[in-house]
Each structure stands twice: as structure tokens, then as C-alpha cells.
């Protein structure tokens, strides 16, 4: 649960509850972006975010997202485990 995985926001699912659909390594899941609602901040479709336990923790640029993904892929089993936990997640 310690990992933060980069994903790209695909669409807004529930504006009021700050839920968006993200694409994480080909897996599409719903996460919450409410922590990015700061003055002048916020995130929307096309943005890359670091996702931790179903919440976007921070916005990152595309190069950083790809570098982090590469690092995670090299981790092997723990990354696979995190992805399978993410796949089982159904946030509404």
C-alpha cells in the first residue's frame, strides 16, 4: 500500500464527489482527485497524477510519470500485487 502509481485521467465520472476514471498501465479505474482541489490547482482529463490508495496525491508531468512507471515495472512482484489490488477496487 506504500506505492504511488502514475495514471492518466481519462474522464470525469462524478464531478460532485471528485471521482475520475484513470488509466493505469492499461487498467481503467475510478479514483478521487479531491486532494488536488487547491486554489488554482485541480486536475482534469489528460493530466498525469500519482495515485495512492485510490486518491490522486499529486500532479506530475508526463516525463516523470513514465520514469516512475519504469521504476515500478522493475520492481516486479510488488508492482504486480499493487496492480491486482487496484484492479479489484470499485470506487463509487
Amino acid at each position, binding site marked *: *500500500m506504500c506505492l504511488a502509481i502514475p495514471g492518466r485521467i481519462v474522464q470525469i465520472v462524478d464531478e460532485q464527489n471528485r471521482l475520475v476514471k484513470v488509466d493505469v498501465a492499461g487498467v481503467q479505474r475510478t*479514483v*478521487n482527485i479531491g*486532494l488536488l482541489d487547491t486554489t488554482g490547482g485541480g486536475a482534469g482529463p489528460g493530466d498525469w497524477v*500519482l495515485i*495512492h490508495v*485510490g*486518491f490522486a*496525491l*499529486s500532479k506530475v508531468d508526463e516525463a516523470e510519470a513514465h520514469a516512475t512507471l519504469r521504476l515500478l515495472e522493475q520492481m516486479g512482484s510488488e508492482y504486480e500485487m499493487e496492480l491486482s489490488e487496484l484492479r479489484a477496487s470499485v470506487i463509487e
Partner: protein
Amino acid sequence: MRFVDEYRDADLGRALSAQILATVEPGRHYKVMEVCGGHTHTIYKYGVDDLLPANVELVHGPGCPVCVIPMGRVDDAIAVARRPEVIFTCFGDMMRVPGSCGTLLEAKAEGADVRMVYSPLDALRIARQDPDREVVFFAIGFETTAPSTALTLMRAKAEGIRNFFCLCNHVTIVPPLRALLESPDLRLDGFIGPGHVSTVVGARPFEFIPKDYGKPIVISGFEPLDVLQSVHMVLRQLAEDRCEVENQYTRVVPYEGNPRALEVLAEVFELRPHFEWRGLGFISQSGLRLSPAYRELDAELRYPVPGIRVADPKACQCGEVLKGVIKPWECKVFGTACTPERPIGTCMVSSEGACAAYYNYGRFAREREVV
């Protein structure tokens, strides 16, 4: 330089390694603590310490959230999980953490309804779908994770969900660092600061380290090159007789942190007077509980819990590992009685734990450190 070819930029790795060698005074021994388990993981996986001179020692800190949960809290969790009306939810890692009489996984095998969730919002969904049961979420983690729990509780309250409760074990990063700095048996020269915690709290809370204790701290990213560069930044501060908070991970960590996350933390949680840490004992004002406005969601108030302090097993040296006093392989049961499959201590459970990281990546390939 066994691993450097796996780095994103191997030449940069070699160059940093040379710069570090040029920065250190021969004959002086340096101890630099990496606070966060994510860094420990990177260090062992990529052999970052192989690129350091022999007189620069990396010491592992207390920043693995699973590792610091004491036995007594696991017992409390199991007591709640065994209640027939309860669906008990927690992160996967937490299920294998030993309490004084078994793990949550064992309680599940014996019939308790324990379910692994990826997110606190998954636990909330279960509560919504099963209004006749009581869903308890076992919340763990530092400031990285606590805002997610906070937003989930805010939503539960706003929706008027009455069967969702939180057993809160969130902890804060500064008090254990202060405790370590006060501890007489540990002489540290500087710190590699936690990357993800800092996205929430920012760099400011770490200013006490240079100010009150005269030691440098560099907030670091998680790639091996990040860690290597951060070690260099710490050593350079020492060479130049400076001590300050530096941020190597500016591409993700703003100096001020995340104001919205800090706001929801303040709304939902308050500091406990004391919280017990595995191996470190009681540390004042180091743990969070639900604030008065969220009391009706507090599992500790809803269910009787044993709340008993349980001493760690005699063989277990997690406390020394978490304080950086010994290295994982110096624990007497490391790799024999205590393995990731059958952990005795918490540091062997989570992949961020120093013992598990060392066991998974280092055990068979290293000779040099066994001094």
C-alpha cells in the same frame, strides 16, 4: 558497481559515485538515515550502497507504516474483526502482521469477515451496499495516507452513512524523528527525507532538524539516481559546514506541501496524547484519532477493544532495526525463524520493511557488509 547498468542513466550514476567519493573526508565515518521504507527498498534493490565509499553508511529509519504498528493494536483489530456484525477491512499488508495471538489472516480463516481493500473508498462502498452489517476500516499510514482516510470519512458523514467506522492508527512523521534525534545510542550525520509524505506536509516540518539539531536533511525521490544524488547533497552540506532542508524531489514535492490535504487532516483528525510504536515505545503526540466532529465514526468508541500493551516477542529486534541501531541481518532470527512467508516481526511483512527488502534483494549476493 554491480547494478549501475540498470539505472536510467548509468553514466550519471558513476559520475555521482565519483563526486561522492571526492566529497567525503577519508577517515570520517558518515551515518545517513533514509527515513522512508520506499528508499530502503530502492537502496537494496539497486545496490545504491555499492556506489558509496565504505565510510558512508546508510541507516534505515522508521518510515514504514506497516512496520510501526505494535502488537496490541493488531490484537484490538482482531477483537473488532471477530464481532459477528462486523465486516473488517484493511490493506493487504496488514493482514499478515502478527499480534500476540495470530494475524488478521488467521482470524479470517477462523471465520471472521476480514476483507482486503485497495482504498478506504472501497470500504465505504461495502458499507453502502451492506447496510445491515457494520463496516470497519483499519486505517494505517503516515501523512501520505491519512488525507485519503479523512476525505473518505468526510464523505461518509456527508452521505449520512451510519454503518461505517474507522479504527484509526494514523501516525505522523516528525515525532519519531525527534525521538531518534534525542536517543543517545544513535549518532546520525544527516537524513534522506521521505518523498511521498512530503508531498502532503511539504518541507517546512523538517526545518527543526537543522535548526534544533544541526543536521542536514534532503527530501528525495525514489529512483536510485534520486537517492544517490540526495546522499551527495547531504554529504556536500556536511563538507561545506551547512545544515538546511534541501529538496531533491522538487518535481513532485512543493515546499509548502498540499494545502488541501493539510486542511482535511485538520478537519477530521486530532493528535492523541500518546501512541505506541512497534519497537520505539510510546511517543507523545505522534498518532492521530478522529476529532470530536467525527466521533460517531470512531470504531474505538463503538466497540470495546482490549487496548493492552503487548511486549514484542523476545526474539524480535524490530525496534533496533526501526531505529537503525542494527542492520536487518544482525537480528538473530533474520532469515531463519523470521522470513517473509512466516514473519515474526513487522519489518519482514511489508515489502517496504527493511528486513523484507534486504531478504528479497540482498541476502544471497552480499558479502561485503557482513562485518
